[in-house]
């Protein structure tokens, strides 16, 4: 008998299961009805952000007694201390990084990404906002909209948060005045319009005294809206607002035995059903979904953000980094696009620089073609610039060595986002949101279609030398080698768009295997002239055709 069976068996003998368990089960039913809302908070040291979160947790009964005891001095609870994190910060009295908090109410579970409002910590704010459904921006009722308010709202807007709640705090210091609130509300509405924030909701609060945080305030009867928590409990999740075709980036191929080839991934957007016609990209071959396989059985339907395994009707070799997508509404296939980039590295971003770019499950080389502007997030203006420094945000044109299968960030957050990695120190140097795609699928540079190839030459040193020198004159990456027993590795190199010339001492025909992972095929070459082979490479799309000037990105 297995462990699980044994434990169930014990329960079945009546040792444990009783009325109490049945009653608890009813409570758990209610618990299972809760979804999960993520919100970010941003604010500066004296905005009272930590106090606001502390109050939210305390009034909604989400704080443990031992934590409250630890921050109570002279019978007064220091709400800000409830949420302050690391030791260094306690000493400095500020919050310095993104801290995540968890709480729940009868209606919902919540994850707070609590980020600092300091100017130099734009990157933290962007980090917290990247997964948020809602952003809470703090406004000091005494001061109204400040530079930092605009900064927070601007970052929330750039990171595509659909709902922004403006908590107008310290109303207790303004005698709970309706005029003060109305003035700030008008200013905020203008700001929302300018930043194209779909929904901005102002709430008058006092975090210190608990007004309109969890409970509706008795001291502001003129305010007819919901408390802050009331709003958080009713706002829809961002994912429920997304409407895109199927996007399924392949994370890993599962091949437990000969009869099963499954593609594991998390659905980035859309819905999938067995029988749906899909396209595998970038190879472009079409097939149908055979099954949606999971540990809990096969599914009739799955949708974002589920993690599943898809099997397809046709046996094709699809690997990590490729995407299975809706055949009728596929993503863009692009090697050149404009993105809004949040820069997070001490070394500024400059045109001409090369980084690694991670987008869905694929990592490619990226070349910064142009820096178009820097966004002044405090004055909401764009200025021309030739570089982005740490914590700058700007518009940048990026070219990639292999095509991305992408949507704009507005269309789909998860297929429109990317990170840039510095290949020297492996740091996450920047985060990007695709704004517009400048090369449509048809006009994609030839590089995009160049699949690379592995050519097995055997003992033909003259032919190898000839091919090598011919290819060195183009923009194609060439590798000539005599390494043995590394065919898989050489194919992987070929897939990067390279031509691998593999020599050995064996005799036999010249074999050409294209590096296109979607449709790798091996051809036996009849002709053994270099020019014939080069033509064949072009015909098969293994190397670019025509004008090589377009292929600058292969560098």
């Amino acid at each position, binding site marked *: 008998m297995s462990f699980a069976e044994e434990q169930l068996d014990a329960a079945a003998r009546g040792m444990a299961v009783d009325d109490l368990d049945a009653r608890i089960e009813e409570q758990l039913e209610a618990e299972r009805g809760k979804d999960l809302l993520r919100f970010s908070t941003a604010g500066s040291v004296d905005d009272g952000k930590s106090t606001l979160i502390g109050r939210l947790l305390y009034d909604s009964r989400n704080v443990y007694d031992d934590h409250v005891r630890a921050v109570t001095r002279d019978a007064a609870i220091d709400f800000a201390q409830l949420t302050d994190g690391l030791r260094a910060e306690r000493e400095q009295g500020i919050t310095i990084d*993104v801290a995540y908090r968890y709480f729940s109410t009868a209606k919902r579970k919540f994850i707070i990404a609590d980020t600092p409002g300091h100017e130099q910590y734009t990157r933290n704010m962007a980090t917290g906002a990247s997964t948020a459904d809602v952003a809470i921006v703090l406004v000091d009722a005494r001061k109204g909209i400040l530079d930092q308010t605009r900064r927070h709202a601007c970052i929330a807007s750039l990171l595509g948060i659909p709902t922004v709640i403006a908590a107008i705090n310290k109303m207790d210091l303004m005698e709970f005045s309706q005029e003060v609130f109305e003035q700030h509300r008008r200013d905020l509405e203008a700001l929302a319009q300018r930043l194209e924030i779909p929904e901005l909701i102002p709430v008058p609060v006092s975090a210190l005294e608990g007004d309109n945080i969890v409970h509706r305030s008795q001291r502001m009867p003129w305010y007819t809206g919901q408390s802050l928590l009331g709003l958080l409990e009713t706002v829809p999740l961002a994912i429920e607002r997304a409407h895109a075709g199927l996007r399924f980036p392949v994370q890993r191929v599962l091949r437990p035995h000969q009869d099963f080839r499954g593609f594991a991934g998390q659905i980035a957007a859309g819905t999938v059903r067995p029988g749906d016609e899909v396209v595998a990209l970038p190879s472009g071959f079409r097939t149908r979904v055979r099954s949606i396989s*999971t540990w809990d059985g096969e599914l009739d339907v799955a949708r974002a953000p*589920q993690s599943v395994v898809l099997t397809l009707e046709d046996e094709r070799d699809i690997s990590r980094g490729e995407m299975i997508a809706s055949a009728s509404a596929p993503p863009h296939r692009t090697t050149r696009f404009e993105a809004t980039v949040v820069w997070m590295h001490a070394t500024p971003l400059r045109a001409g620089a090369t980084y690694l770019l991670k987008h869905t499950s694929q990592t490619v080389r990226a070349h910064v073609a142009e820096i178009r502007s820097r966004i002044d997030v405090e004055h909401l203006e764009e200025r021309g610039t030739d570089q982005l420094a740490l914590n700058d945000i700007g518009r940048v044109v990026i070219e990639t060595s292999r095509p991305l299968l992408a949507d704009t960030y507005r269309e789909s957050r998860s297929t429109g986002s990317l990170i840039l990695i510095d290949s020297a120190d492996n740091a996450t140097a920047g985060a990007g949101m695709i704004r517009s795609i400048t090369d449509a699928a048809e006009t994609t540079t030839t590089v995009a279609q160049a699949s690379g190839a592995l050519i097995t030459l055997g003992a033909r040193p003259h032919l190898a030398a000839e091919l090598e020198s011919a290819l060195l004159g183009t923009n194609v990456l060439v590798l000539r080698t005599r390494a043995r027993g590394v065919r898989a590795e050489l194919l992987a190199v070929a897939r990067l768009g390279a031509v691998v010339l593999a020599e050995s001492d064996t005799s036999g025909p010249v074999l050409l295997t294209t590096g296109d992972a979607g449709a790798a095929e091996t051809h036996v070459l009849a002709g053994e002239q270099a020019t014939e082979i080069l033509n064949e490479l072009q015909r098969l799309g293994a190397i670019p055709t025509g004008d090589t000037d377009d292929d600058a990105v292969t560098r």
Partner: protein
Amino acid sequence: MTATAIADRSAVPLHEDGKRATAVDRFNHIQLLEAESIHILREVVAEFQNPVMLYSIGKDSSVMLRLAQKAFYPAPIPFPLLHVDTGYKFDEMLEFRDRYTSELGVKLIVWRNEEALADGANPVRLGTQRCCGLLKTQALLDGLRAHGFDAAFGGARRDEEKSRAKERIFSFRDSTGQWDPKNQRPELWNLFNARIGLRESIRVFPLSNWTELDIWHYIHLEKIPIVPLYLAKERRMLVRGDSLIPVEQSFVQGLPGEEQWVKCRLRSLGCSPCTGAIRSDADTVPKIIAELMAVRNSERANRIIDHDQDGSMEIKKREGYF
């Protein structure tokens, strides 16, 4: 992912062809958390050469193991488990470990700091801080290095403790295994930067966003086996003030009258000399959940080691502790 299977397992009948109906309008929090964790597990296996899962035998490890089964199904779990055995774990934990892992058919590596144990390291002689440093942190770092693991899954959750609240999901460690809380990689969306240099490594926390209640709820729904120490029964304890100290090791000696039979259970599992029990009647998982919903103290309040100095968990983590 279980899709509606989690929420509606009993309510949704299987179709004749064995498929489960899944007409849901929205996902609940457990389904969302499960999907996220599976994504993380797969991403690590795809990006790293030699990953390992730290297996502590506790409830979080049990959940992590189930998620790993789901992530790679129908293929087997593609990495081994590493248990850092301090030598002072409860016998019931070790029995559970050996039986459950062999039942699942996963490879288990057990690592102990034999040298320190031979020198008689224990918390009474060394104090909890030094004892933990040698038997947990040092043993963990040695074990990871000896096998050349470049990524290690841990079951830590951000809601457990303040310093964990700002831990990344992919947490970078330098070549000596240290954590620098001021120099963490920003983590946006679900795009994890998996690039590391020679001898550097990553700790990965697939359960980062789960709460203690979510863990128990999932154990209940998925019928995941747990060490019986979590369930209340009469046990021999040293009763000292509010504390219940398990009587397992000979160096844990009570004063006359302290040793009593008490109905109690453990809320988190650690080493027997340093893990206090709580008085409880919760002898089933649903009762544990009910207790949790009513309880007013945090989960690690019974861990003697977390309180040995202010900010002590953060110090341990910097040094390489999970």
